[in-house]
């Protein structure tokens, strides 16, 4: 290579390096320079905000909204969110936080804008009391998140499979079949005896989640941790009772043994290989998304066995790292307003946590065409105002993972129920100590 060539190469390399530096330097600027700003909203699952964004952007011409993570799994979302917060960079201007994880984020409130500093205090009346309180730190001085939805409970079932098994298909008749979980098991045994080729339910872990939250809500109000943040997995009768009921379900061979949220689980929806699934309000959107258009009118919604219950529900928070905090807070307030919650409910089914929205005819009289025109408003909203919250301790998510995982090992036949229970207790203690 001649000297000229070498010099030319060096010049090219220098130019390339300079370009790289310059582009990196302005690579993360999202302000177009003409006064408009972009607000990023991070969610998981289905929040149903698309139309609300459009409406907000129409009303606020300076704002563009970008949503990330729709349809994503909470297990993938939460580590990402934590990394963003730890790194001080990367999180959206608004982030969704599931109630089970809120406790962990609340332990370090400095990662989030205190919404009380933005006059959010005036909005307290717009939320169910316990939903509002859960967004506050223990001293009540820092409001981390505004409530989105609550997880009012029902049981979704496939009418086509019920008909094939010779069971009633009409929703009130189906509700009457299972006042208690013992009745639910008996119906399941009848269903199995009819040999439709489908399982009665999708996964024992989902049923366990439902029962433990229901039992805890109806008794002492906590499950894995008591209100003093002591781990009580092995001594809380609510947990043991839910465990035993779930073991009966597994023992009766009712579960399809799909791993919830896995690809196989999604396929099982499409192939109609199970007949019932525990159904918090937000699950209706998931069922519709997984089963697809072919399943329209084949699903319906009945009462959940036992008495009510609350599974899940989220909050919207504004990380301190957001460069448009005030604007983000304003958007979060809009999305969690009664109007915003009604819009989300209509789009994807998450049940409002605002009493005004819960009482609004748009919710109470709502029906869902996909679920055979089920009166979802009545089914879910009726019980929602009386929902009893379940207290979540500091390592709630890690402990919950261990206990549900133990359920799963029994379901797959890897462990006997006794082994599973001792695994659940031992691993929960280990997880809580980490």
């Amino acid at each position, binding site marked *: 290579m001649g000297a000229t060539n070498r010099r030319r190469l060096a010049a090219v390399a220098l130019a390339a390096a300079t370009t790289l530096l310059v582009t990196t330097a302005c690579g993360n600027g999202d302000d177009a320079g003409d006064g408009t700003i972009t607000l990023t909203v991070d969610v998981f699952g289905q929040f149903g905000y698309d139309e609300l964004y459009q409406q907000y952007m129409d009303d606020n011409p300076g704002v563009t909204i970008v949503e990330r993570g729709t349809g994503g799994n909470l297990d993938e979302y939460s580590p990402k969110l934590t990394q963003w917060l730890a790194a001080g960079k990367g999180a959206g201007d608004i982030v969704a936080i599931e109630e089970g994880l809120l406790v962990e984020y609340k*332990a370090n409130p400095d990662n989030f804008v205190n919404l009380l500093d933005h006059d959010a205090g005036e909005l307290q009346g717009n939320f169910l009391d316990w939903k509002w309180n859960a967004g506050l730190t223990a001293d009540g001085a820092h409001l981390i998140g505004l409530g989105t939805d609550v997880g009012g409970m029902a049981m979704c079932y496939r009418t086509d499979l019920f008909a094939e098994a010779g069971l009633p298909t009409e929703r009130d008749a189906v509700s009457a079949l299972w006042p208690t979980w013992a009745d639910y098991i008996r119906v399941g045994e009848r269903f199995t005896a009819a040999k439709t080729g489908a399982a009665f339910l999708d996964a024992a872990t989902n049923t366990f989640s439902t029962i433990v939250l229901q039992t805890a809500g109806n008794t002492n109000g906590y499950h894995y941790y008591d209100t003093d943040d002591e781990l009580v997995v092995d001594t809380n009768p609510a947990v043991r009772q839910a465990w035993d009921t779930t073991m009966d379900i597994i023992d009766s061979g009712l579960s399809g043994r799909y791993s919830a*949220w896995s*690809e196989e689980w999604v396929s099982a929806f499409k192939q109609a290989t199970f007949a019932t699934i525990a159904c918090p309000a937000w699950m209706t959107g998931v069922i519709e998304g997984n089963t697809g258009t072919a399943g329209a009118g084949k699903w319906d919604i009945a009462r959940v066995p036992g008495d009510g219950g609350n599974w899940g529900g989220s909050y919207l928070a504004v990380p301190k790292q957001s460069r448009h905090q005030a604007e983000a807070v304003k958007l979060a307030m809009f999305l969690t307003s009664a109007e915003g919650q009604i819009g989300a409910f209509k789009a994807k089914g998450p049940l409002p946590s605002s009493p005004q929205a819960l009482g609004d005819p748009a919710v109470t009289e709502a029906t869902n065409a996909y679920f055979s025109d089920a009166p979802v408003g009545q089914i879910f909203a009726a019980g929602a105002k009386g929902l009893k919250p379940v207290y979540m301790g500091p390592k709630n998510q890690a402990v919950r993972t261990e206990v549900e995982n133990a359920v799963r090992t029994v379901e797959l036949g890897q462990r006997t129920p006794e082994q599973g229970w001792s695994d659940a207790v031992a691993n929960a203690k280990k997880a809580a100590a980490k």
Partner: protein
Amino acid sequence: MSVQLDARPPTPAAPPGRTTRLHRLSRMDLRWSPYLLIAPFFLLFAIFGAYPLGYTLWVSLHDWDLLGSDPTFVGADNYTALLADSDFWHAVVNTLGIFVLSTLPQLLAALWLANLLNRQLRARTGWRMAVLVPNVTSTAAVAIVFGVLFGREFGMVNWLLDLVGVDAIDWKSNRYASWFAISTMVDWRWTGYNALIFLAAMQAIPRDLYESAAIDGAGRIRQFWSITAPLLTPTIIFVAIISTIGGLQLFTEPRLFHSGPNPIRGGPLRESQTMTMYMFENAFAPYYNFGYGSAVAWLLFVLIAAVATVNVLVIRRLGNGGRKGGRG
């Protein structure tokens, strides 16, 4: 007589004062330029390699909640806890199991493939390029596709097994079955890549060695073991080290093989949780224990160094044995 290849016009004699300066400059050039030229690598390595390494070590000596604001220094506590952690050792066994199950057949297959590609073939370049195709596909896509193929109920592998009368295998919650399934993914992706490296080394072996061996009556197999294999030893060591590093850091394949709740566990009983997955589980969700996760990372580093050393020693010994045999 030597031939001067880079003939240049003779330089006119420079005035004496300038000569020494030029001379000194050129001596400095000779001495320091090489360092300057290789400096960018070490500069980048210091920033992106050494610094994170040291920082991870620093973090691993702390009780460091990922979201917490003030980590406390705990010395070697994380390491002692880790060495007594059965889940950690379980992950180590999984990692080594999957590593052996994937690397051994992979390197043997690559050698065999390279040997085949080294012959006179029609459209030789086409064949050689084709073996690289699996490697350019995205790991994530491969893992997801294989994850579906190995599904318990709707998977194609179980469907094929069913055709020949074998019962369905629960690939995702049977420890050894999941090791096997993950190994097939690794093999599928990397065999062709390693074959190309072997092929390049094989082509550097002088033809006349084979010709004289053929005259001496050595067949193809004898030629391979007596000429190709020993002369390939340095390449095999290189490939083995690279495979060790890659194999022990296995993450994407086993992680995406599992979907559903907490896929980072690699199955309900951690059937195929590798060390990197265990590191991730502890450093991030659901534990957010950054110090503990960093300690796992450091022990992984130690393990890789140990396994790579063992590999090199074993292969060098094998290679020497072969060379002795080859040279008689």
